[in-house]
């Protein structure tokens, strides 16, 4: 492995822990959205926050010592407006990518992301044009719900101590959790597919796909924001290594940082299973829970247990839950896992359209996401009924599901080094592309922008003898909020805390 992928202990101490770990042992999460009203007071608060931040430092004191996992974690990410509010110069601000500058809620980004109809930013609960401005997001993780409340209280106390210098949009604060069974609200085991990083696991995707300052899958260092040397008189930031930046001696703001997508996605669980029930009646003339689970799995690309259809085409086999499989050899026509299914769209592996397997793999490696999401809202039904073939009676629970009026869904958070090249690309070119993989007219059946006004056709489920086309897909997932953030390294945060007011 090349030196340019590896994370040294010094760089781990600089990278925020949120980027390198999903903190699997900490199921409870709070997302606090804040505004910087006064630059010096905000910077003072930021200085006191720095020592409390969780870094990517190893949890082992010594290589052979047991892991000493933290009970709480705290991380912070800034919007473009937040960078400006902390006093970052125009020259520095202008080196950030246009996606961050525009933010997620502008008409241009909404068009690219497919946030139309009910998903349009005008309806959002956080981050939209009618919501409070967001300058930063604080992400808190804790072991228990009680401790999370205490943790939030402590952090809110430190915000109040700024006497309005830093202001929290308390009404828009969000809470998330990871369910013990690991299933998301539709009932499917989630979080199986996570890219491995060359810099952490020693193999997988180039570290620079997720952290600025390391080689990415193009074999290059990702483009990194900088400031002119005059803006960093105390030389807090490292000098940019880019030879094209040498004459001007720019200083590197991006090193060990990354870009974060936050999206609040509401799930219509009752609508999802009702659609499947209607499909079952259409196909078989009667509601058939087993057929409903089968068709739902075809839409997802995995069985409720997380076992991929490509490896377990006939029935759910929980022991096959893995992310280690490909399509081109075993399932080129989607007879097992339909080409239009959710997991095949969001990660086509070795088969993008008609490109060869090696090239496809190489290209998909350039469009990966580290997912850091959590759920919100109570489960509508017990998802374990979906994967208990021994008790078919239990499966009746998914029949005639009624919405209970409770909001539920997922806080979808991802880490990527390029918002445009990774998150937006996947969203536009794969998830919401009606012509994805040679298809003619359908979007992602699960998370696609299947708005009635722009609605594509039904999903195609190819079979060896008979293929099935579902009824036109309604919207199951609605965007309820979101924003783009930059999650700086600790050195850059220290710099933001020290920018002089001009």
């Amino acid at each position, binding site marked *: 492995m090349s030196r340019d992928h590896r994370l040294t202990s010094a760089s781990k101490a600089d990278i925020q822990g949120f980027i390198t770990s999903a903190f699997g042992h900490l199921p409870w999460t709070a997302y606090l959205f804040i505004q910087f009203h006064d630059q010096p007071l905000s910077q003072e608060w930021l200085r006191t926050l720095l020592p409390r931040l969780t870094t990517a430092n190893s949890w082992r004191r010594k290589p052979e010592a047991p892991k000493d996992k933290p009970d709480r974690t705290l991380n912070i990410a800034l919007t473009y407006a937040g960078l400006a509010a902390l006093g970052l110069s125009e*020259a520095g601000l202008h080196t950030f990518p246009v996606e961050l500058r525009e933010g997620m809620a502008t008409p241009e980004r909404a068009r690219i992301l497919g946030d139309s109809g009910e998903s349009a930013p005008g309806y959002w609960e956080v981050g939209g044009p009618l919501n409070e401005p967001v300058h930063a997001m604080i992400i808190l993780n804790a072991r228990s719900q009680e401790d999370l409340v205490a943790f939030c209280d402590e952090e809110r106390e430190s915000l109040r101590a700024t006497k309005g210098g830093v202001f929290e949009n308390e009404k828009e604060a969000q809470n998330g959790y990871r369910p013990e069974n690991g299933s998301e609200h539709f009932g499917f085991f989630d979080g199986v597919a996570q890219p491995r990083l060359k810099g952490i696991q020693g193999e997988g995707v180039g570290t620079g796909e997720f952290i600025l300052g390391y080689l990415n899958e193009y074999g290059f260092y990702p483009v990194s924001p900088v400031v002119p040397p005059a803006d960093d008189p105390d030389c807090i930031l490292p000098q940019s290594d880019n030879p094209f930046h040498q004459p001007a001696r720019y200083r590197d703001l991006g090193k060990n940082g990354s870009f974060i997508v936050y999206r609040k996605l509401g799930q219509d669980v009752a609508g999802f299973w009702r659609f499947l029930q209607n499909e079952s009646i259409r196909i078989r003339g009667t509601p058939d829970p087993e057929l409903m689970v089968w068709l739902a799995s075809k839409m997802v690309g995995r069985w409720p247990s997380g076992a991929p259809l490509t490896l377990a085409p006939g029935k759910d086999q929980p022991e096959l839950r893995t992310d280690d499989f490909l399509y081109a050899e075993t399932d080129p026509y989607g007879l097992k896992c339909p080409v239009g299914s959710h997991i095949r769209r969001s990660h086509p592996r070795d088969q993008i359209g008609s490109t060869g397997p090696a*090239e496809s793999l190489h290209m998909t490696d350039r469009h990966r996401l580290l997912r850091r999401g959590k759920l919100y809202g109570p489960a509508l039904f017990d998802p374990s009924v979906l994967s208990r073939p021994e008790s078919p009676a239990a499966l009746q629970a998914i029949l005639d599901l009624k919405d209970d009026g409770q909001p539920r869904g997922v806080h979808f958070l991802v880490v990527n080094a390029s918002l445009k090249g990774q998150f937006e690309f996947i969203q536009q070119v794969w998830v919401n592309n009606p012509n994805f993989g040679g298809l003619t007219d359908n979007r992602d059946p699960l998370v696609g922008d299947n708005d009635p006004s722009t609605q594509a056709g039904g999903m195609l489920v190819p079979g060896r003898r008979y*293929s099935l086309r579902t009824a036109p897909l309604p919207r199951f997932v609605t965007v309820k909020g979101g924003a783009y953030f930059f999650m700086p390294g600790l050195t850059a945060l220290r710099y933001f805390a020290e920018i002089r007011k001009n």
Partner: protein
Amino acid sequence: MPSNGLIVIVRVRPECQDRLRTILNQIGNDINGKRLTGIDRQPHIDFPSSRTIHFARLVLLADPDRGPDRYRLLLVTDFEGTWLNHVRELHSITSDPEAIWGCCEGYSDFSSFTRFIRRHEVKPQAYYIAFHGLSLKKIRTLAKSLAQSAPPPVKKPDFSLPDIAIQGLESLLRLPLIGLSVGGIVLRRGPLRTLRAARRVNATQDRIWWIYIFNRLALNSFPPPAHRYSSIPIDTTADCEPASGLDEVSSKKDWEGAPAEDLVAQNQLTLVTVVDPERLPQLQAVLEVIELYARRLAEEGSLVGIRTIHTVRWALLDGGKRLLLASNYDGTWENYIDEFAELILSGLDAIWESSYGFPELGAQDVAAFKHFLRCHQAPASVFYSAYPKTTIPNILDGLQLERMRSARV
């Protein structure tokens, strides 16, 4: 039915420029499905009524040779049938030819329209068409049958021995033609330039077996970059800067009110770069090699593995001073360029390394290469596709489905 292309560049009268831009932008909106109210009173070109035009675009290109605020009108079309019928049709589907063509220098009236077009026509040096023999009617029928088909063609037919034999024979028959073409390039451009062009174009194409053999024989490889940092300018808000005094870049002004060219499924790309005169002969050899690919070696629907291009042509303008690229492709711009960088990296370098502003590390510095393209791209005021929701894989599947059906009968 032969597929043909037309490229026309005409100077726009200075007093007419703003009016023409307004008229063309309105036509563009009309074609995109937003039928404008009162359109009948506006001059428009009724492309959707044509049964022979596959793609068309109208672009206002900066004309720096004549002054900073001067423009030329570029028309690029892909059509079937004869040249003459096409030109006559272009005129007849234009509601008020005077309002559009009357803005151009050299246009007088309908009687001389074909002469006017012929005088300003530009011939491409390289022209690739994904489907040579497919008529518009056929493509639309295929798309329709594919959308209605259940089951779709999930199984490609197995190749039987006779099939393979026929294919082998076809390849053999093509050999003399290929040999003739290569001979022609060598005669026109010289053996050294031809070899260098072939080496530059093919360096990253090892996955194709006969190019693999060529690369081994010609000791051809693609050198790694000197370092791994992008040369993209740091200021993401700034207007494009010309790389040298001779470079020409598009400005933000040109893009105001222009349609966003990142739609799914089809888009167009119009690119004009300035060629270093010393490197023009090498570029000419490269374009001839690409023309050879496009005409003799490309499989149906695929240009060296790229299945997103419906048509693409390269043309030298103004006596070789500038290089025009005009393509019609599937998917978003980002995806299109990414696929290029993955599949034909060395070809990109070979084509544009002779242009001013090309990144120092070449197209493998993808961020800088995209910036180079964006800065030399001209927005199309009018873009028309006869089958905007039908991709190349859709057409290939449609053909496959048809073959399977006829085999069953």
